[in-house]
């Protein structure tokens, strides 16, 4: 799920060629699943943390668990999000990284 898309084939070449595969990657290479709400998620969540937190915490959280996490970011951590933002972000996280079998969730 993480460095994917066009990057994947390049990656394989490097790995075959070297005993210790080297990838120039950092948090900007984290690619979240495409879908409505992705831009809001990227903008909101990356204010304070890298987006690997989302991938790492999947796919075991149901919608209520994701909503709890997002609300904590607003009420405790001070994320400046509107109710609409929260709804869109939770829907995206549940749809792509949620517990139910979602097409884009890893494995």
């Amino acid at each position, binding site marked *: 799920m993480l460095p994917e898309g066009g990057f994947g084939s390049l990656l*394989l070449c490097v790995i075959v060629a070297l005993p210790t595969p*080297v*990838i120039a990657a950092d948090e900007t290479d984290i690619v979240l699943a495409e879908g409505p709400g992705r831009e809001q998620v990227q903008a909101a969540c990356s204010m*304070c943390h*890298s987006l*690997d937190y989302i991938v790492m915490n999947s*796919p075991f959280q149901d919608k209520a668990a994701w909503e709890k996490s997002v609300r904590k970011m607003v009420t405790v951590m001070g994320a400046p999000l509107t109710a609409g933002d929260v709804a869109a972000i939770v829907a995206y996280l549940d749809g792509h990284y949620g517990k139910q079998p979602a097409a884009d969730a890893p*494995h």
Partner: protein
Amino acid sequence: MDRRRFLLGSSSALGASLLLPNRLIAAANADLPAGAVVSAVMDALPGKRPLIKRSFRPPNYETPLAFYRQALTPNDAFYVRWHMGVPDVALAEWRLRVAGPAAITPREFTHPELLRKFKAHEVVAINQCSGNRRGLFTPHVPGVQWGYGAMGNAVWRGVRLKDVLEDAGLAAGALEVKADGADAPTLTGPDFVKSLPMWKALDADTLIAFEMNGEPLPRWNGFPARLVVPGWTATYWTKALTELSVLDRPFDGFWMKTAYRVPRGLFGASGFDSQDTEQNSPITAIRVNSLVIDPAPGATLPVNRRSEVLGIAWDGGSGISNVEVSLDGGASWREARLGRDLGRYSWRQWRFSLKPAQAGAFTLMARARARDGSTQADTLIPNPAGYHHNVVQEADFHAA
């Protein structure tokens, strides 16, 4: 270009077998959330070896199992855990302030002043994140999805917290010591601030440490000074320490009152009465635990030849009394041989010889017992934040 990485996780799209050259780093993967496996990469922070990256920002990096073969964990392989941005402190400008409503005379020290005024003290102690092994919880719970490597063992050197506090003078009502570091929240969230009960703050082994393993603390591990609170989980080991405040009432910051809590009584008394509520307690002492190190689980051992398994065991400071190993699913247990005792807060190496009689898979279970009589859990003790995973390990091997 100094950042060397390779994928640690197994992602079918990228060819799992090619990406997993080293089983030593993969021991926990079978039990981690799938997303935690694919999002992990080996990555080197400046001054560090490649470690298992759990998150880039804040940096949360896990020590690979192979480094635990050494009794002391090398500084450049020591795990990294931050809640917020990592401060870059200039030693010449660094000050430690000691104040608070229950401190008689507020003080401020430079680094040379602390070294000159107070006697140096050393302790060997394990530093273990409260959430070490959270990723192995079933069912999974949110948080940094650590495998086995959010811990390390080191010689810590500095001055006693007790000496510094007593220099400022403690008022009769002194109840807790609050510790703050140079890190700060990004937005309006709560600063990462912790507190200790007076008895733990005044313990002769609780330090303001400047060195680990004979070197200055790496920036990633709290340069220039951090609290060392032997026996207690690392949440209390405040990094880049700048301020101590002696309080006459319980500190009610988020990271004490709300976070780092366990259900009351589930793991025994907290030892931190002023922070207990009816429902829950702060996480405090490390639970007795052990880990198979070498050969790493998954390895193949020779049939009819003697192999030696190396492991480590530790607890919250009573010391390890014995480690037992079972090769028959827990029906019978034999004693492992304990290695050198580096002190009651250090982990203790153990070794166990075995000679597989036939080819095939087998499981080695290891169970440590502490001098206080406590032993590892047979089954997971669920708790909301995923703390204190000390279930008896079942390490799978092959014989061939």
